[in-house]
């Protein structure tokens, strides 16, 4: 078996004997990403309506369904309507702390079976299995959004306590709720936030997966015929809430 030392030494040797051949430079990283991320946010306080419009265009371009509402209190009614149109009842949601609001009572009042995910790690394997089964059986998954990238119509979700990866993955319909604080214009700006979360800024959550979601799951592997919902959700909805969710 190759040891780490041998492996790296062979690479070192090759690196030493190979001169640079073409222009070489890695991307210029932000010096203080948290400060730069803050600047991006501040500038968007002015420009968010244009950014939101760009997001909507791109998101719809990748077959996402866009909704807009005044406040988080209206969200349960929208979710219920989506559910009723699909004759669906079972909803798994992120924990209220991760969503920024406790929507379970209102969703329940609309006749849905709501299963909020716990804020803390399940105590045992059996409980973990039960929660996963709930997500696998659910018709709808309701999540928050950590970044919404206008350039590509992308939702970025960070995993962590109370915000399982399966909520946006296993149910056939994913509904994501966000406000203007999640909006960024470009992949480049999203990169600044990623740098910030890993260096001098605070990440939205402490999980080990960050997922960029750009529309519903799709494949074209059979005769290049575009088909949605192959493994992940067949539908993705994004509900934009005008009043910032966390007040």
């Amino acid at each position: 078996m190759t040891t780490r030392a041998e492996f790296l030494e062979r690479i070192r040797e090759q690196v030493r004997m190979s001169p640079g051949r073409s222009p070489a430079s890695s991307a210029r990283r932000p010096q203080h990403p948290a400060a730069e991320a803050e600047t991006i946010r501040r500038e968007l306080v002015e420009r968010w309506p244009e950014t939101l419009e760009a997001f909507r265009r791109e998101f719809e371009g990748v077959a996402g369904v866009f909704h807009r509402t005044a406040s988080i209190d209206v969200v349960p009614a929208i979710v219920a309507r989506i559910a009723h149109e699909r004759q669906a009842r079972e909803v798994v949601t992120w924990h209220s702390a991760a969503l920024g609001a406790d929507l379970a009572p209102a969703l329940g009042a609309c006749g849905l079976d709501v299963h909020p995910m716990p804020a803390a790690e399940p105590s045992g394997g059996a409980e973990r299995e039960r929660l996963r089964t709930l997500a696998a059986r659910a018709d709808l998954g309701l999540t928050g959004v950590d970044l919404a990238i206008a350039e590509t119509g992308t939702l970025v979700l960070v995993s962590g306590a109370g915000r399982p990866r399966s909520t946006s993955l296993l149910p056939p319909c994913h509904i994501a709720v966000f406000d203007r604080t999640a909006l960024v214009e470009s992949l480049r700006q999203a990169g600044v936030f990623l740098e910030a979360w890993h260096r001098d800024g605070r990440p939205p959550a402490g999980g080990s997966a960050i997922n960029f979601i750009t529309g519903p799951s799709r494949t074209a592997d059979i005769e290049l015929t575009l088909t949605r919902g192959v493994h992940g959700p067949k539908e993705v909805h994004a509900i934009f809430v005008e009043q910032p969710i966390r007040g």
Partner: protein
Amino acid sequence: MSDAELTTPFRQRAGSAMKDEFLQEALTIATTKFIGLRREAFAGFPEGEALRDRARAIKEATLQHLDRHLETLIANVERLGGHVHFATTPAEARSIVVDIARRTGARMAVKAKSMATEEIHLNEALEAAGVTPVETDLGEYIIQLAHERPSHIIAPAIHKTKGQVAELFTRELKRPAEPDPEALTRIARAELREKFLQADLGITGANFAVADTGTVVLVTNEGNGRMVTSLPRVHVAVMGVEKVVPSFTDLMVFLAILAKSATGQKLSVYTSLVQGPRRAGELEGPEEFHLVLLDGGRIAQIGGPLREALSCLRCGACLNVCPVYRQIGGHAYGYTYPGPIGILLTAMLEGAPAVRDLAHASSLCGACVDACPVRIDIPRMLIELRREVDDEKLAPWTERVAFALLTKLLQNPRLYRFAAKAGRVLQRPFARDGRISRLPLPFGEWTRTRDLPPVASRTFQERWASDKDLRA
């Protein structure tokens, strides 16, 4: 591809591909569609050209300090609780993965599409160890059921019709299937959903690995990459050493051009950034995370003639535009990586002698350089490979003698003029309508698939000598 198939000469493999009418149609439709989608994507993205240059410069800069970036990656993966393994050969990589499977008592492994695990023939090794590997990318699932190999880097089953897929599902899954892509996809979803939830082991490649955060990046459209890295209790990622990039800022440059080059999407549906095993408070994610760093011939090229090929993102754009690939498809190449870049990667992984024939399976037209998101100069390296193959006397002796004679002829003006005159006389019985379509043996092999222009009735040299207007 089995060894038996590889013993068929390349020429013959290519020949049968060109006679396969369905394959010809499928190839034309697929490659033409991909070319159009890619062109549209870049047309609506003016900064794309500059980003391609930046992406290339990042790859180059990373290679110049690959040792350092890998050390950073390793340190960060371990800091996050992951394990890093080192594989010089495919056999070593296989045994590392098989050992992990054994130790963790895994019985089924779900796999996201990964060229690296194709390259090391991992599935056979897992099966031999009693672990059932299940490919979960729809295209890969289809060809696994059919016991075939991928024919395109990003669309592995483009050589199959929906009718063939329906027959395959009916036979292998014992489920009556209609030849309708939507219905077939639904069947695959149901079959594979069960497997995702049951599997103990998730196996992936890596599109990128970000050194300074210990992140493995997976790009998929179907969501199988997310399933495989979220649901099983162990995740193993197998990755060539060249896939590392320094930072998230660098990563964004690549993400902005990768999907556009591959499928014309602005971004693939899912880009998953995976950082070690699940953390405190998380419901899902693996308990164990392993990263297998694979050499397999790459390291020797850091300072070698194929260095540029280490920048490849595996987008498949060069396949679609290659006039040779468009004619013969992926299987005829005979190895894991098809197309123009595939020839170079095969030389890298298997050694130059393996591409004795393949090195010539290119018209050197340069369409691949234009399509490549990081502008790899594939023709330059193919020419170098041809030279190497020649030096090693890998070409047949007839070819070497013919080219040696031609070299003499071209160096001696008198001999050249005599040859032109002689050719004019000798070609008479064969030239028809301004072309030579059939020559007798031993030249017949040349004209079997192409025409030869005849020697002109007056050569340029003769006109130059006598025709004043030409010089005026």
